[in-house]
């Protein structure tokens, strides 16, 4: 069932290209503007790079999540899935997986280019790839939660940001700490382990919360 749902979401993404292209372009635009804004001094950029990359990633995932459930809610798909019960959880999992494939994965893929723009050192660059690889699925899970909670709200955008950004903060702290440690040649296994722990915990529990949020929104 999950694979059919994932194929459906991918077909939708193939037809609504703005849904995943806009966040990606946003990510690239923010990161190209930064060196222009703060000046091209390589050392300064190198120090700021971890924070910049992660803040841009965070905001672009947030940008992608607003419309996640909007159409399915309006069309009554969610309502009928809730009545059906058994299909709700596979639907939630398919949403999470495709959200990561369409917004998280592209960020990981273009991060080498970003690293060049900001003059990141090779050691920090590996750390950046790793934290993005572990961190973006967590971003996706949390943003799907936010989208599920706010799907019935008319202008849910700012509410979504207020609800979800605080949950991103631990991720932001540990991910940029890992990149910073790597840049100074220090081990960063600890930070990565915490990121993995946060991801596993979220993956185990948040889908249940998402399903409940959908249920509450249609009742």
């Amino acid at each position, binding site marked *: 069932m999950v694979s059919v749902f994932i194929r459906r979401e991918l077909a939708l993404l193939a037809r609504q290209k703005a849904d995943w292209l806009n966040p990606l372009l946003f990510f690239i635009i923010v990161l190209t503007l930064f060196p222009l804004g703060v000046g091209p001094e390589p050392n300064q950029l190198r120090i700021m790079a971890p924070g910049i990359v992660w803040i841009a990633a965070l905001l672009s995932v947030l940008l992608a999540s607003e419309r996640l459930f909007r159409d399915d809610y309006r*069309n009554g798909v969610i*309502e009928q899935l809730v009545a059906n019960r058994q299909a709700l959880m596979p*639907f939630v999992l398919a949403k999470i997986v495709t959200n990561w494939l369409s917004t998280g994965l592209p960020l990981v893929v273009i991060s080498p280019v970003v690293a060049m723009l900001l003059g990141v050192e090779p050691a920090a660059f590996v750390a950046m790839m790793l934290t993005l690889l572990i961190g973006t699925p967590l971003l996706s899970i949390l943003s799907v939660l936010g989208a599920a909670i706010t799907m019935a709200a008319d202008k849910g955008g700012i509410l979504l940001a207020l609800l979800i950004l605080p949950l991103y903060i631990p991720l932001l702290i540990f991910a940029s700490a890992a990149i910073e440690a790597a840049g100074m040649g220090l081990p960063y296994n600890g930070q990565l382990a915490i990121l993995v722990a946060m991801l596993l915990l979220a993956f185990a529990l948040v889908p249940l919360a998402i399903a409940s949020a959908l249920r509450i929104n249609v009742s």
Partner: protein
Amino acid sequence: MTEFFSAQGLSCIRQDRVLFEQLDLTLNSGELLQIQGKNGAGKSSLLRLLAGLSTPDDGTIYFQGQLIAECLEQYAASLCYIGHQSGIHEQLTAMENIAFWRAAYQLPYVDSMTLLGELGLAGLEDLPCHMLSAGQQRRVSLARLWLTNCPLWILDEPFTALDQSAIQRLQYRFRQHLAQGGAMIVTTHQPLSDGFSCLKTLELSYRW
């Protein structure tokens, strides 16, 4: 003998307005319950209660003698609910929408092409549904009734936007379902044609 489906003393309050109270209904296998009433009388709210989507302000609903709150999984597996909205995503084709619902209800594979042909949608299977007319979209939405084997159907205004021939075909499918021992609850303003031997009607009056 326990009834297939029954509800006792149902009340529903929306925005301080009592839509209905102390409503009783029973439904046995092979019966069709038609719910009538003016716009805003609470038909859709009643169907949502019966489908387990919202909880009644008062009253109980039984499925095969059990409270539905106690057998939610079993009840949901026996229920095919199609609400006011079609459950069709406009960006997807008819085939993709049907494949989605077939997976959701875990139905065996059928040839969707033949089914769409029977529903008068031949040649339109690969168009996104936003290019279809309202009636054609409704047909795509109702297509799952030809696939499902759920014994209880709850349908909110299934005839909306359908033309006469489609209405006839849908009523034929209703009779098939009832003959196989299924039961259904339908809201409609359209008078159902003759040939429903076990037709019950329930009139909801508009209240202030």
